[in-house]
């Protein structure tokens, strides 16, 4: 249990995919303009990361690794994640229409999100068990959500600020993103000591 909690909090805080490892930056900058779209995107990411972790683990350990094809994991995982997202979308449309509407356009969008691929690949690299992989996926998704929500708040404040002309738009957004990221550096070493 302690190990699982450490994995979860490490992914959310110290190893945050967006703000510390700089994965999935594209939706981080693109969809964080307002809170509701940031939440929609994050919910979809949490969902897909958790399921993708659960599905890719057996594929690697039961098919690829025994055949000595471990090096194919990147290509195989992309294939699996893309098909999985499509499948989940069809299933949601049929059985959980409210959730389908809430996730909306963001669900198919994150098929190509590098953070989702990264979480599955790093699960293999870290030699996690199935349960640990799922918790890792969940933590990575929650970390993504935390970063998105925090940054949409930062951007709302930015909209009211009047930066110098040359900083308007993307430049000031990038500066703000780097400062937000810097604040997460303060979490390093926190998690290990939290559960001692």
């Amino acid at each position, binding site marked *: 249990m302690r190990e699982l909690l450490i994995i979860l909090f490490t992914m959310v805080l110290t190893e945050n995919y967006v703000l510390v490892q700089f994965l999935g930056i594209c939706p981080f900058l693109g969809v964080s303009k307002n809170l509701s779209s940031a939440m929609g995107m994050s919910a979809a990411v949490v969902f897909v990361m958790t399921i993708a972790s659960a599905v890719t683990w057996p594929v690697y350990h039961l098919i690829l690794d025994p055949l*000595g094809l471990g090096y*194919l994991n990147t290509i*195989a995982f992309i*294939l699996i994640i893309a*098909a999985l997202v499509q*499948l989940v979308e*069809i*299933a949601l449309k049929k059985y959980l229409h409210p959730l389908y509407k809430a996730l909306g356009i963001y669900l198919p969008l994150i098929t190509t999100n590098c953070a989702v691929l990264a979480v599955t690949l790093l699960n293999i690299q870290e030699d996690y068990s199935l349960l640990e992989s799922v918790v890792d996926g969940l933590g990575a998704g929650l970390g993504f959500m935390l970063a998105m929500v925090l940054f949409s708040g930062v951007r709302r404040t930015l909209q009211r600020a009047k930066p110098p002309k040359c900083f308007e738009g993307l430049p000031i957004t990038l500066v703000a993103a780097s400062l937000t990221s810097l604040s997460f550096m303060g979490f390093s070493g926190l998690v290990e000591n939290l559960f001692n």
Partner: protein
Amino acid sequence: MELVINAVLVVTGIGALAALLLIAASKFMHVPTDQRAEELTAVLPGANCGACGYAGCADYAAAVAEGRAEIGLCIPGGDKTAAGMAEIMGTEAVDIEEQVALVRCSGRLTHPPDKYNYVGVGSCAAASALFGGRASCRYGCLGLGDCQKACGFEAIQLLDGLAVVNQQRCTGCGACAAACPKGIIALVPLKRSAQVACMNTDRGAETRKICSAGCLGCGMCKRACEQEAITVENNLAHVDPSRCNNCGKCFGVCPTGCITLMIKNPPPPFEG
């Protein structure tokens, strides 16, 4: 060699399996959607402005397809959209009176002097909470662009601290009118007519002191108008667009120039 064949087989196998699963899923979990709703969505402008009262074009289309909503609610789409929707639904088209937004203020920042130096948050809603805004005219445009931000069609531009509507781009959805804390943006019929671009109901002498472009309520336009389309109430002139024939006489005699002629005016230049 075996390694290569294995690799190809495994990846192809995974792909084929995924394809089969997806085909099966789309067969068994197919959700019947109303064909008309999709066609209606295609006809609608897709701006998702919310002027119809529904959450976006797709929502409105679904409501129409299910018979929960009328056809003529899409103001930005105008007659063309209404006709297209009527064709799909097999009903009579309804005429929509096209409207454009008009900012009822002519005072650029150079005209009314400031009451105080405003350094707060750059939004009209915030500024108007502080003694009604910095402009000494209580009725005037604050020029901080809440309407510009609300506009989904980039039809509003700030010129010298006054919001100006580009009638070519304006769709009459009314988002700006709802966003203006001063309530000085009105939707007026898109036809040739004169409009008074001022809301100041103070006495003429007081208006004159604070703004060189305000309506004084002098009544010169009323006397000049041969169609009896202009009335003066509370020191402010009103034009009845149904009577106005856009002759331009009122425009010519107005001492402060607060009457604008719709359409005849070239749209303000836009950058970018």
